[in-house]
């Protein structure tokens, strides 16, 4: 036990001495939080919309006004060309609404009047958002102008829970928190591990009477503490910049945080013990931790959208479970009742990584 702590102290002293790494270890997580937190917005707010009004009646103008009254669209100045697709081709508009010349006449006669909506499909997500918005606005317009025959029989009273204003940051920022903690503690631990090999200081460890498990735990503990520091920093950033608040019972979050940082550090140690040099270790951690936390964890889009063989990998991505815990802690607030399976999965994965590190260090010893 004492030797473990001694190893941890040595590791921290070594970490503190390298100014560049300390700076990067503290600045990079915060920078990542800010960039991801501000830049990842899936729904556009000010969508440029071009209008071609061939009718020029009060009805068509009222309809156009209603479309822009949603505050979701901003008008695009019509160019001299009369082509409806040209502004979309040029990327000036995301959609064009074409109102036919006999629009108001047909509506007055209660005949169906088509309004052509051309939407830029290259941004798949916003294409759907634009379609839904235009359809809902059109319906609302007909309703308030009493253009709909018959009365409305069934209405939906929709309540959005947890996030009634649909603030995207409430979804993204707890996810970024998990991505940051998946990448940076693992990165530092991997560098520390592979450095011993690269600089051959590992021979001194072999020569001492330090047991592999003490060595690994000492190293792990040091970077666990660094990881805790990073997590505190990022958490403060999330509270200050994005207004995140813990809702409900904080204990599942605290437990999950501890286990997740341990898992991240152990994974880094494992990669570090397998990699041949620092460059390769950084590459491997960046590729594996970063990509899985970003893509196979449900960070951006629902995890159920991942197709079959890839979805199997997502079961062993710790960030996936930790995101469930952080989103519960910051948004949902159900506490232990909702997240205990995720906590168990995290503990299981952490133990798995510990086992992998111990095996890898044993193999390192045999070879030399």
């Amino acid at each position: 036990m004492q030797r473990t702590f001694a190893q941890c102290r040595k590791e921290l002293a070594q970490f503190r001495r390298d100014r560049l790494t300390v700076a990067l270890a503290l600045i990079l997580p915060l920078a990542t939080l800010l960039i991801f937190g501000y830049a990842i917005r899936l729904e556009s707010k000010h969508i440029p919309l071009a209008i071609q009004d061939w009718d020029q009646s009060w009805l068509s103008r009222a309809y156009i006004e209603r479309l822009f009254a949603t505050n979701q669209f901003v008008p695009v100045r019509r160019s001299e060309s009369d082509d409806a697709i040209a502004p979309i081709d040029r990327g000036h508009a995301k959609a064009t609404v074409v109102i036919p010349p006999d629009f108001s006449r047909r509506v007055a006669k209660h005949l169906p009047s088509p309004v052509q909506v051309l939407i830029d499909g290259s941004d798949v997500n916003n294409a759907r958002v634009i379609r839904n918005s235009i359809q809902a606005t059109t319906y609302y317009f007909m309703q308030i102008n009493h253009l709909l025959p018959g009365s409305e029989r069934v209405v939906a009273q929709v309540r959005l829970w947890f996030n009634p204003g649909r603030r995207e940051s409430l979804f993204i920022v707890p996810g970024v928190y998990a991505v940051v903690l998946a990448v940076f503690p693992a990165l530092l631990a991997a560098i520390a591990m592979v450095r011993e090999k690269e600089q051959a200081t590992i021979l001194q460890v072999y020569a001492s009477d330090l047991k592999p498990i003490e060595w690994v735990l000492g190293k792990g503990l040091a970077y666990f503490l660094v990881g805790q520091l990073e997590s505190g920093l990022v958490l403060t950033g999330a509270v200050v910049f994005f207004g995140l608040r813990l809702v409900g019972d904080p204990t599942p979050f605290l437990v999950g945080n501890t286990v997740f940082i341990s898992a991240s550090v152990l994974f880094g140690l494992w990669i570090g013990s397998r990699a041949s040099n620092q460059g390769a270790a950084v590459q491997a951690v960046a590729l594996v931790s970063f990509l899985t936390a970003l893509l196979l964890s449900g960070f951006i889009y629902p995890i159920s959208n991942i197709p079959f063989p890839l979805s199997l990998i997502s079961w062993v991505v710790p960030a996936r479970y930790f995101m469930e815990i952080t989103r519960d802690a910051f948004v949902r607030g159900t506490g232990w009742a909702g997240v205990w399976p995720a906590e168990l999965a995290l503990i299981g994965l952490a133990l798995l990584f510990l086992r992998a590190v111990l095996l890898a260090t044993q193999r390192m010893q045999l070879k030399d």
Partner: protein
Amino acid sequence: MAKGWPNWQRWLPGVGKPWHLREQLLSLWAELISSRLLALMQKEVRQILRNKQLLFLLIFPPTIQLLLYGFALNPEVKYLDLGVVDYAQTMTSRELVASLTNNQVFIGNPQSSNQAALGEQVRRGEIAAGIVIPPDWQRQLQRGETAAVQVLIDGVNANTAGIANGYINQIIRVFSRNLEPPAPPAPIQPQVHFLYNPGLVSSWFFVPGMIGVVLTLTSSLVSSSTLVREKDTGTLEQLLMTPASAGEILLAKIIPLFILLMGDVLLALLVAALVFSVPLRGSVLLFLVLSGLYIFVGIGVGMMLATIARNQQQVVLISFFVNMPLIQLSGAIAPVESMPLVIRYLSWLNPLRHYITIVRSLLLRGVGLGVLWPHVLALLVFVILLLSISIYRFRRQLS
């Protein structure tokens, strides 16, 4: 610098005395063979081919990233679990439930027995949405009143919740209209056409973006690491002792890298076309030329990093620091239009943003230079700036 260069002027037609073609070609060949540039390039190519890690970096990570991003990121709102509590239990209410679940958006989840249980399921995130049909629903309908159904949506995922909300409202609207048999069609009918990607295939959005990301990462990493390795191992001094000038040394490094990275462009295009069947509607030639231009941006970034960093480890860390904002603020994952205004303006200073716009426009929209010229111009400016600054810094460090 001019001293070490082959005499380019002699090859230009109309300069100097009139030549015979054969003589001209022969002298060109001789010039090339004897040129130091070619020898240096040969040395670079051998060095690259011997370096297994570099070749691995050129092929493996780009392919994996293209495949992962193309397959894993999918904004589709599909197969959401919809909890149903039907207190009315009539034919109409069952019809409503059927019309909500008779599509790929929602799957009926009949497990909840009462409203409280349904609420708890939504709270825990077990179902994405829930619908409650009240007991007096049928009576309200028969009396000709407006009957309400309650819908609960898990709003944690703001984007999915918004789209699910739109679908539910639309389905209920259609259902409501169909309740009255002689209802004439609604007067205004938006007819929606999705241009460029009518099936809204998500990989068609992400894969072109990832082509840009992959090229940025690979070209900056490969060029910085080949330069730093010479610095690291001290072989740069040896090169400097040769009669070759700094310009020649750099050019000999850049040309083979450029050819290798063009291979990466083809690889990415092949993956996009074969695996994801992304269309190539614009000109292939223009795509290749502009990608070549962008590779010079990547090489410029890499050379810049190499002049800043002192060893390999620092290069990797700094490139992480530089590439992350470049990628996140480029519109590869989340569209630039959705970002806050300040970031949107800042993104004009991001070469990757221009390249991704170019790739998406060329592949999906099939437009030409007439539309793309501002982005091409921006890339040109970046190439000139990055290359001249980094060559200047590099030469200063050498001498």
